[in-house]
């Protein structure tokens, strides 16, 4: 008979013990948490700010803030979600300072509907990875995600690249679940529309 997990026996996330030890002053425990999440925090920051130097600063600031505020971590959410929330706030603040974009809050992007209504209905070639070399493909993917409004880019990054659940994404961004779903839909459709220019199947006789 298959084992059925009974309610109330949920496994405790290993981070809980590390956070508890770090709170008691165990620096090695905090260092382990840094090791576990520094790559992810850097990626999130770079996706949102689209700037490597900013992403480096944000990664450092995020962990320093987390270290200072460890007492405030309630444990209601995952430690990683709490970290991502700090990193997102730092990243959006950085964008506001740089003023590289007109819209840098999670609320202002809602009006941006351009590209959210599908217009390109060509199937794609099966393996975009085989059409372009890795550098070309990375350039296309970077250029395309850069064109998204920051709020959409952030939701897509957390949900589809970092694989956070809808609930975790909502928690990290301070948004409602319907708001996350709506931004995610628009982000995915806008990216799809833009990538279609590169990946669509050509009809016979069309240049490659």
């Amino acid at each position, binding site marked *: 008979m298959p084992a059925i997990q009974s309610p109330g026996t949920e496994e405790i996330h290993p981070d809980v013990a590390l956070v508890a030890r770090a709170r008691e002053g165990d*620096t090695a425990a905090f260092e382990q948490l840094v090791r576990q999440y520094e790559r992810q925090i850097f990626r999130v920051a770079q996706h949102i700010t689209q700037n490597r130097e900013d992403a480096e600063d944000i990664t*450092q600031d995020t962990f320093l803030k987390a270290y200072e505020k460890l007492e405030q971590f309630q444990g209601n959410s995952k430690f990683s979600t709490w970290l991502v929330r700090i990193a997102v706030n730092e990243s959006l603040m950085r964008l506001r300072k740089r003023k590289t974009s007109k819209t840098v809050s999670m609320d202002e992007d809602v009006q941006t509907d351009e590209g959210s209504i599908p217009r390109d209905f*060509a199937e794609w070639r099966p393996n975009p*990875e085989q059409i372009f070399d890795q550098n070309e493909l990375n350039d296309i993917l970077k250029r395309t995600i850069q064109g998204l409004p920051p709020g959409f880019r952030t939701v897509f990054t957390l949900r589809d690249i970092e694989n956070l659940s809808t609930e975790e994404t909502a928690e990290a961004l301070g948004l409602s679940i319907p708001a996350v779903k709506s931004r*995610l839909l628009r982000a995915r*459709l806008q990216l799809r529309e833009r990538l279609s220019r590169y990946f669509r199947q050509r009809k016979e006789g069309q240049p490659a």
Partner: protein
Amino acid sequence: MNCTDFLSQLTDYFDGHIPADLLVEVRAHLAECHHCEVVVNTTRQTIEVYRGNEIYEISDDLRERLHSAIMTKCLEKKRA
């Protein structure tokens, strides 16, 4: 179900969170609407191509530099 109704269900469709009765309608629409079928396929490919290609991978050198900087700052904070 028309295309706009279908699109509004797309996120839940990908997540497998559509109630059974609505799923019947969604599938019926997909079976008869080539445009929406293409949107589903290419949106899925969009997600996969971003998941499968790490565009902002951090080099080992940078990671070590960042790691040291983070721990140095935290230890300074602890001593302060």
